[in-house]
């Protein structure tokens, strides 16, 4: 799955650590999601979408 997480956090001047703290996950998790090594669960994907005020489909796309 592809995602726009890196771009979205850059637009907000957030580091991986900033985003991790906002999502209450580890920086390692943010890095794994950004690099496509890990696909988040639906609840976490909703949390990410809520944080950016977007729908899940606007952030995550099929390969």
């Amino acid at each position, binding site marked *: 799955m592809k995602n726009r997480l890196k771009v979205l956090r850059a637009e907000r001047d957030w580091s991986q650590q900033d985003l991790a703290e906002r999502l209450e996950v580890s920086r*390692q*998790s943010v890095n794994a999601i950004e690099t496509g090594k890990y696909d988040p669960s639906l609840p976490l994907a909703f949390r990410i979408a809520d944080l950016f005020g977007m729908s899940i489909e606007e952030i995550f796309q099929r390969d």
Partner: protein
Amino acid sequence: MPVIAEMDKAADDNAALQAQARRETLLWGAAFVIGTFGVGILNLFVDLGSALSAALFFAAMLLLFPFVRAGERLQRVSGNGSLALLRYNRRFMVASFAYVAALMGAIWLTKIGSYSAPVYVLIAIAPSLPILLMIWTMARLLQEEQDEYLRSQHIRHALVATGFVLAAATIWGFLEQFNVVPHMPSYWVFPAWAIGLGGSQIWSKLRG
């Protein structure tokens, strides 16, 4: 994207701090392994006597404190720590010391006297209880870890370790059956599992 590149650089501002924490963890880890294994190997070649040998091993075990502390610091500065991992480290440390104490106690008791069969059963079981505590500690880590990615990693490492133990025990069993290798007591299963766990974690780190 230069903005993102700059941001990532900023995010890694504490890279030097991370590198230092990594070095300290490796150093204390190496000191702990060399210390504990060193005393064991020394015992094979030099008759230290049980009291001195136990004291030396216990001293080497104390290196576990700075090792765990350095590991926790590395997790903290790299943003990879969690409360569940912190609890896991502390519980595992307690179990490790309890194991050494129970094992030494059991060896000492069997040296100084002879007992009835039920007492021997109790003495023999004593060192396994802290190992059960370690297994419980691992189960609690999976239950308490709130970070889903970290939890998935813990599960993956545990599965790799289980696969390693199953493979190693099967191969060793057949080698033993055909008198190629000596008999290995089954209490080696847990250390072998722990080696598999550590190996999987190192492999994961190396792959990035």
